[in-house]
């Protein structure tokens, strides 16, 4: 099951990256498919947790540099066909569900129109904005740092959720996963437009295989505050050239306030439940 989870993790990320690369009508379909593959991944993970199987989120590197969308779609279809052959390790109900989903997804992917890909041209131009060199550099560094951070948060919250049966805290983890997905998709889209798309690096297991939940929440609140500061600085850096882009980063900055409130709520609940 562990190998299957790794392969599903890689297929999910690869499909998400293909969604970023696409600039046409395929984009939303690829995002939808990647969301389905992520859910498959979490369901396989849940079966591993219930079976007491040790696992982590290590995976292989995922090559994504292509000049045509059809190349990565072909690669994803191959990945999904390989997964289909490994489904015997999960329960019959889950295997049945995944098999049917994969059959549809691979068939639909094979019919998607091809596109030229510019997500790796390193031009670092965003839409028609005229950003100064300094603002472009600040945006570039922010996107690399924060796209990884959002992926890291998705994996951490997901792991904690998979190992918790506390409905109150799991509701909060799910909101935070959903929010991080929105941020990751926003940043990934910008990276693709700027020609600097990259797969977020593998998350070190020390970050999610944690015992000190209270410490995790406290550090998480600090990290959210740091993220707010990064958004504020970036908004300032791009504001002179693009008030619209500055508004976007102010919008993200404000979203972090609710994340902080949720983490404080989760921390209070945790302390009450565990008397820690």
């Amino acid at each position, binding site marked *: 099951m562990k190998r299957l989870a790794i392969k599903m993790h890689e297929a999910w990320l690869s499909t998400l990256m293909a969604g970023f690369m696409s600039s046409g009508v395929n984009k939303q379909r690829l995002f939808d498919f990647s969301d389905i593959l992520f859910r498959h991944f979490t369901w396989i993970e849940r079966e591993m947790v219930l079976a007491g199987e040790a696992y982590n989120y*290590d995976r292989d590197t995922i090559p994504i540099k292509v000049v045509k969308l059809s190349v990565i779609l072909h690669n994803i279809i191959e990945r999904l066909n390989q997964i289909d052959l490994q489904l015997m390790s999960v329960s019959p109900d889950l295997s049945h569900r995944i098999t049917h989903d994969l059959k549809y997804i691979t068939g639909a992917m094979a019919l998607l129109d091809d596109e030229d890909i510019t997500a790796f041209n*390193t031009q670092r131009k965003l839409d028609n904005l005229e950003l100064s060199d300094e603002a472009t550099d600040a945006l570039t560094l922010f996107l690399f*740092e924060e796209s990884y951070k959002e992926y890291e948060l998705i994996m951490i919250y997901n792991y904690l959720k998979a190992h918790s049966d506390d409905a109150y805290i799991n509701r909060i983890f799910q909101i935070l996963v959903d929010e991080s997905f929105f941020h990751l998709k926003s940043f990934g889209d910008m990276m693709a437009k700027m020609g600097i798309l*990259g797969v977020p*690096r593998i998350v070190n297991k020390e*970050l999610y295989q944690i015992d000190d939940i209270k410490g995790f929440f406290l550090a998480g609140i600090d990290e959210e505050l740091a993220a707010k500061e990064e958004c504020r600085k970036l908004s300032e850096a791009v504001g002179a050239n693009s008030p619209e882009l500055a508004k976007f980063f102010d919008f993200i900055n404000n979203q972090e306030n609710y994340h902080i409130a949720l983490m404080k709520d989760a921390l209070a609940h945790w302390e009450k439940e565990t008397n820690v």
Partner: protein
Amino acid sequence: MTVDAQLIEHMMEPKNYGTLEDANSEGIGKNPENGEKVAIYLKVLQEDGEDVIDDIRFQAIGCSTTIVAGSMITEEAKGLSFTGAVNLIAATMSILDKVPPEDAACSEMVALALRASIETYIKRKTDSDFPAITYQISNNCAPKEEGEEV
């Protein structure tokens, strides 16, 4: 950090990131102030009586600068003899005072992880259970405030 084509390339596709299944040594460089760390995994082979880094990987809990430093230094270290790798570490350490503090801390962390992994390998020649060596950095990651003494 100056953003140039080489840096973007390393950020888009960090070289040698991950773990190494058949590693025969590992070492850690750590920033005690913020918990950031770098682990380097080595596969060392004997060639003409010399220890040579046949393959190398790194993993980090850290920022993009650490990833870029890890990508660049491991790429340089791959294929080097231990003598060559020690020279690479010395060269890296010698330029740390010429780069911004946050970049210096990241590069030092990678260089020390490489030194730790080499020394762990040497220790394991006589004690195969020798634990991975960890070194702590001396550079502070935080940029100095204006007017603060350097």
